[in-house]
């Protein structure tokens, strides 16, 4: 009995050997849509075996750089020095967009709060310490804020969300840029650290007067309260997928066909843009050793950039605008395997 089972398993495994295995690892933020894409794609392409491990952006960059995985995923673009360390053999390909929301737990407040960039920076720098501070109450007319202490909660683990949030703070507050800076882990001036989105959400939820930041999708799924943020045009905007796409439109104006996709979407122009918008990238090599692997991978990425985008809104992500497609396609076409073009792709639309 046992032997026949083993035999059957061996037989079943035999055709799998003909599949092209493609492994990736990295950011947790886009994990839900990546898994969905891979599942859908594998139904029409049984010859490709895709796998993505959501180990975090930093881990993704490290494994990609070490060559442990074929592609990486990250919410924080690689630094110039990290790119130089692998001889520039990397392409950043954006996949979907997200937003970081400011979540809070203020006893007795049911209305949606409004935050200005100065207020957010002041709270996270520790210069605004009470919820009834005049700088908060003045932009929240009609809301009775208690004299509770503000308890800042940030991520204790390194995170792409922290990168997006500190990137935003560095842009709107010169003091933040000079004292703290941006990164997946920074030296937070005040506050408690929560481990992961869950740890942060639990700490905010259990601590009266707490304020923190999480991805929009996570906040929506867990019914967390989050505020409106004033954008560079002076308008208070709720974090919605449309407001995120509007943020990219603001950033697109400064980009061209040959642009490096490592752009920051935070604090963009545009009257309807949500200011703490983020982009997530796939990391691909410019040159692969294995031609069949390179071709299969690029084919999948192109599918994700076109057909796959339709899935984004239902899963809580904002899709990339169509203007980006020809630029992404050109970038994918430049990928080589052993010096020869890996994928020629369909004609640009």
């Amino acid at each position, binding site marked *: 009995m046992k032997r026949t089972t083993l035999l059957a398993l061996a037989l079943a495994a035999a055709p799998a050997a003909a599949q092209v295995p493609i492994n990736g690892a990295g950011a947790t933020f886009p994990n839900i849509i990546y898994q969905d894409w891979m599942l859908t794609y594998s139904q029409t392409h049984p010859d490709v075996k895709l796998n993505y491990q959501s*180990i*975090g*952006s*930093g*881990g993704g*960059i*490290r494994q990609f750089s070490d060559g442990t995985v074929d592609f990486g995923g990250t919410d924080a673009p690689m630094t110039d*020095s*990290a790119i130089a360390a692998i001889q520039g053999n990397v392409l950043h390909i954006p996949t979907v967009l997200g937003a970081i929301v400011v979540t809070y737990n203020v006893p007795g407040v049911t209305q949606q709060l409004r935050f200005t960039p100065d207020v957010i920076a002041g709270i996270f720098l520790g210069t605004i310490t009470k919820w009834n501070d005049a700088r908060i109450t003045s932009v929240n007319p009609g809301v009775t804020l208690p004299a509770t*202490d503000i*308890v800042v909660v940030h991520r*204790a*683990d*390194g*995170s792409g969300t922290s990168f997006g949030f500190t990137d935003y703070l560095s842009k709107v507050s010169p003091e933040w840029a000079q004292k*703290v*800076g*941006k*990164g*997946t*882990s*920074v*030296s*937070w001036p005040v*506050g*408690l*650290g*929560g*481990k992961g989105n869950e*740890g942060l959400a*639990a*700490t905010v939820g*259990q*601590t009266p007067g707490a304020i923190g930041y999480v991805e929009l999708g996570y906040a929506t799924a867990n019914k967390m309260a989050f505020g409106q943020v004033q954008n560079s045009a002076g308008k208070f905007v709720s974090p919605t997928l449309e407001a995120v796409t509007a943020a990219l439109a603001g950033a697109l104006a400064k980009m061209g066909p040959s642009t490096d996709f490592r752009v920051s979407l935070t604090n963009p122009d545009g009257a309807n843009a949500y200011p703490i918008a983020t982009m997530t990238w796939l990391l691909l090599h410019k040159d692969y050793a294995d031609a069949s692997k390179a071709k299969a991978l690029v084919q999948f990425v192109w599918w994700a950039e076109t057909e796959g985008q339709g899935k984004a809104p239902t899963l809580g992500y904002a899709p990339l605008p169509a203007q980006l497609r020809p630029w992404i396609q050109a970038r994918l076409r430049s990928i080589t395997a052993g010096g020869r073009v890996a994928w020629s792709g369909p004609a640009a639309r």
Partner: protein
Amino acid sequence: MLRGVLFRVRYTAVTARAKSTGRLSRVSVLLPSFHNRGDRAYRATLTVLAALLPLLLVIVAAELAVRAWPAMQRFGFSFLWTGRWDPVAEVYGAGPLIFGTLMSSLVALLLAVPLALGVAIFLTEFAPTWMRQPVAFLVELLAAVPSVVYGVWGIFVLIPFLRAHAVPPLKAALGWTPFFSGVFYGNSMLAGGIILAIMIVPYIAAVSREVLLAVPGSQREAALGLGATRWEAVWSAVLPYGRAGVIGAVMLGLGRALGETMAVTMVIGNRHDISASLLQPGYTMAAALANEFSEATTGMYLAALFEVGFVLFVITVSVNALARLLVWRVARGGAAGSRAL
């Protein structure tokens, strides 16, 4: 694992005692020499296996030190007491982490040792017989709860309880001391210490119970015969007899407290700060490693984390060595004590 440790500690305590009282002097046995080829092969295999484990320890230490070398060179010994941990500026100091690890373990021991010893004494000396096994089993069961469950319990039950009921009276009574000053937000050194205490109680209690069980009845009978009350018999005869084993039990608990990660990081606040107040957040080495390792991308960041790992390794190995030394010293000193009794 607990069983094995129990046996080891009990065995150490018993042999130490036997040696000290001189009742069981060294037994010399004539061993047959290794003439047989099979015996020789057997001996060689065992020697290799026995050498392998210490070697592993050395390899781990060496690997940590090598990977930490860039940070050691850059920051020198000041790494051990400076407090700035800034991945953006690439400046690292592990002072708060080392302080937090030692402080949270100390708080845990202060709370856990009396409780665990009380449980062990109650179960061996005072509890009705029908109660002993079930209660001992339940206490040991605490060791089987995964630490992340303790962490969740800490966030959703312990911290709200501390905030509403425990800390206000504590602050009213002891708020003037530096240890209970400042505003209490919940996640704090105190919460971390309490969680750790709950986690190490089963270890200390179970091992102490085994040790006390191993104390011969004649010791109790002699004390009671001299007119001691039951409490006095425990305090002056049973506990001193089992001292070595009890200290071993405490050290086992300490070792576990030093290395505990998940439950601690969920309640301690994860802040790189040194504060005398137990109400303020802190951080431990194990928690920082678990949090930051997977996202550390630059060389110096990784090296600093490896150095934290190295320091943690050195501290835990020293604690274990110290425990051995202490058990050994107490066992020898105990001989004089038990003779005097």
